[in-house]
């Protein structure tokens, strides 16, 4: 992970440098025009959230059952990143919603569930901070349950009639506007690389913190 950090950071920087150019070049969507362009980053953010929630859920399960310290570092790092990307996704969605639906916020299924996800992972961080000794395990349970609700969030728009576009929107986009479709996945890849870079940095920080804790304990003895 440490060796890959610099190359991946360079790749992320290059991708994010190109992304605005690509977004500017791609033709306007017929009904929403300029406003629709926020979609490229909005969708990509939620792809990063998905990856982050997945990593947190798997790492939490490994930590809970095997007790591997490294898994716990990945879990806390990805939980923090989930809240960061989730906040960005909610904000970008809110900005888009203001133009597309005329309101900043709509209590619709997808939005409510996304808000819930943000609260779950903020709860995760609160437990870790204020749970006292053994809080890592409690947080791991939170991570597993949070990850288990993610599929429900994804499918929520198909089950409940809402204003948010359904999951089939990506298929129609692929059929009708291949340029936009490619760009969406390019941006998603950029966000995923950024996620990996940030995760690597945060995991390393967590390892150092754990090492420092051990050193303090050893010095006291």
């Amino acid at each position, binding site marked *: 992970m440490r060796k890959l950090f610099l190359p991946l950071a360079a790749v992320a920087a290059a991708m994010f440098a190109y992304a605005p150019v690509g977004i500017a070049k791609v033709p306007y969507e017929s009904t929403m025009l300029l406003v629709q362009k926020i979609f490229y980053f909005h969708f990509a953010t939620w792809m990063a959230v998905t990856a982050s929630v997945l990593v947190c859920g798997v790492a939490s399960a490994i930590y809970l059952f095997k007790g591997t310290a490294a898994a716990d570092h990945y879990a806390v790092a990805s939980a923090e990143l989930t809240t960061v990307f989730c906040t960005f996704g909610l904000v970008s969605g809110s900005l888009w919603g203001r133009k597309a639906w005329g309101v900043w916020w709509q209590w619709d299924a997808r939005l409510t569930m996304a808000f*819930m996800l943000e609260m779950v992972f903020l709860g995760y961080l*609160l437990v870790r901070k204020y749970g*006292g000794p053994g809080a890592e395990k409690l947080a791991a*349970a939170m991570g597993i*349950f949070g990850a*288990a609700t993610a599929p*429900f969030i994804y499918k929520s728009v198909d089950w409940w009639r809402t204003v948010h576009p359904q999951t089939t929107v990506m298929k129609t986009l692929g059929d009708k506007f291949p340029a936009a479709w490619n760009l969406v996945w390019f941006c998603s890849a950029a966000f995923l690389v950024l996620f990996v870079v940030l995760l690597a940095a945060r995991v390393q920080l967590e390892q150092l913190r754990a090492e420092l804790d051990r050193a303090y304990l050893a010095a006291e003895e």
Partner: protein
Amino acid sequence: MFLKVAILVLKKDLAIEARSREILYTTLFFAISCLLIFSVAFVKEGVPAEDAASGILWIALTFSGTLALGRTFERERYGETLRALLMAPASRPAIYVGKLLGMVLLMLATEAVLLPLVSFLFRAPLFARPLLLAALLVLGTVGFASVGTLFAAMLVRTRTRDVLLPILLYPITVPVIIAGVRGTSALVQAPPDEAVATLWIGLLTGFDVVFVTLALWTFEPLMTE
């Protein structure tokens, strides 16, 4: 064997509760005080807001349920009996199931009193489709209590358990509460929309399966020191 242990734990909890009735009475009292508070927000000029009853019912339930969850495990901690329970040569998931059943029964007892009261005070025809409503309530209670029992059990050892329980429990159980409220409002409206209520019952079943499976799976490692 599994079922036997679960029923033994349930019997033990019910016997303690039958003697003191502490949790049942306090939970019930709290649920009814919630109704009083909601009347401030949802009644205008003596007339309750349309469609408020289902939300009031479910929020009173979740709030009072949280109180009960905290108390059942506080009692175990106070009597130093949780460790004894965990040291018993019984499978941990069976202990969890016993605790969960006790919790569900307690919440259903609260619902039995709360339901007619909400129907009476907020003029809601809650008993128009009794079977569908019962299904919603039972499935919703199981979903809420399954996560709640697990979290309350694992929080017993932390100092800040009173604060952390609602913090952890509410975000995770939001889907269950949404399904309960939407399903109940579909039944309360005139005419009752059975198709929508059935859809929510299906979703609740899905949540219950996921939550109970996860809880059974994680209870053992979570309760090991």
